[in-house]
């Protein structure tokens, strides 16, 4: 099994939203809907502040509750990987996956009547390319690779840098890591 993961350096992110625009262009995401987005989180009181920008998306969980809760099998793993895809023709739009996702990472409804989400640009991976958001990022703060390859760039980054995931307590085993 290949475990793909994304590593995002929050100390280099400036919150420009280019990852969002890249995704919308690459995947023809309809106006008003998003597969990825940027969260700005400020802690502390003026003037002692810490602000973090986070580019967020589907975590392509190792234990994806959207897959286990999908009644039709539309939410599924792609090949022998952790990449979670939605088979549009099997999706009835019941929204059980939206309720099951701790990250609110799914679009409410694609106009064509199915629930849509980030695919880690699996169509680009097949061509040996990074996801569109990663390849577009002007600060170079996003990395993509194979987590269960100890020599991959992301594995080396995670060994050398302090990092976190979002809501690890859910047990979903998220695969988007944030360097802090």
């Amino acid at each position: 099994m290949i475990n793909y993961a994304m590593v995002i350096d929050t100390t280099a992110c400036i919150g420009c939203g280019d990852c969002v625009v890249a995704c919308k262009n690459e995947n023809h995401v309809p106006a008003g809907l998003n597969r990825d987005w940027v969260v700005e989180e400020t802690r502390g009181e003026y003037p002692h502040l810490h602000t973090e920008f986070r580019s967020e998306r589907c975590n392509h969980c190792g234990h994806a509750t959207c897959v286990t809760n999908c009644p039709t099998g539309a939410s599924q793993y792609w090949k022998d990987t952790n990449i979670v895809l939605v088979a549009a023709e099997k999706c009835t739009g019941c929204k059980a996956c939206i309720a099951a996702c701790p990250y609110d990472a799914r679009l409410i409804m694609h106009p064509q009547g199915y629930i849509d989400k980030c695919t880690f640009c699996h169509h680009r991976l097949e061509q040996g390319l990074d996801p569109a958001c990663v390849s577009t990022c002007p600060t170079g703060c996003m990395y993509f690779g194979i987590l269960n390859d100890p020599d991959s760039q992301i594995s080396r980054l995670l060994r050398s840098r302090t990092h976190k995931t979002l809501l690890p307590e859910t047990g979903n085993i998220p695969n988007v890591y944030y360097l802090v």
Partner: protein
Amino acid sequence: MATVQKDYPLVTTGISNALIDHSMGPDAFFKGWFIYATNLTTTIPGIRRQLEQAADSLELIVVVDTMPAEITGYADVVLPECTYLERYDDLRNKAERTPTLALRSPAFPPRHDSKPAWWIARELAGHLDLADYFPWQDYREVLDWQLQQIGSSLEEMERIGVKAFPRKTPLYFEAGKQVKFNTPSGRIELYSQHLAGTGHDPLPRYTPPERPPEGYFHLNYGRAAAHTFGRTINNPLLFELMPENTVWVHPAAAAKLAVGNGEYVRLKNPEGTHSNRIRVRVTQRIRPDSVFMVHGFGHTDPRQRLAHGAGADDSGLMHNVKIDPVMGGTGMRASFVTLVREEA
């Protein structure tokens, strides 16, 4: 230039305010303006009255821009330029950390009846008997010639886009090395001979900023990473990222004014000028005595269908613009505003 900027002998580039001052009235030094990609109404605060006077006395105002803006309304002639994605521009030539040359080439052909700046310049030259200065048909020829001089070609750059070159000079000053600066003494001057020689305070003293009147805030403005000045608000994808600007207010100030996050207010300066409506963003990221807003919003041209009326314009609120006596630069963060709640 020296004529209109004689009060600023140290300045070697044009000072917009001085150029405008010398464009009004029948005896004005300037007779015409050629405005390239600058929406003067929002780049220079309080300019609208001056613009109207200048428009009356100037014999010709030409505006080159990629889309309708407030300034195109003052123009005798508008020359529509295609966007940067539709044209060749000069090579990007930057030393930076790693010296690079980059090609700026079109991603697709121009839409509508718009032309690149090089085409506009060359055609105008032809009509002015200056065609000898443009001994080429297409700017691709110029770029190719330039690239041939450094052993590359347009063909190569169309393929690779960016070419890096090895660094030949050190990135930083070497420790202990005597470096000569462009000053009378050749050293870093805390006491400036240049300033002393032109009658200015040679060792500038701190001038405290004026404090806002009771109930008012310092008006600060800045940029957002998603937008480039006010020029990209109407782009559908970037508009979605940030469809309007907000006015940042410290929680203590918001509580005192009884305004909540996301609520629409208008900003009012001490002269009574009101802004377009703008949403409040309550945040710790602003001083309690100040407000902040992103520049470039509040477009008034209805042809910018998305940007029209979205958010508020900061420059229209600037009643107190400071001019740097040495360099002529404008200090545009000396104005004050208060928040006026919108009646529901």
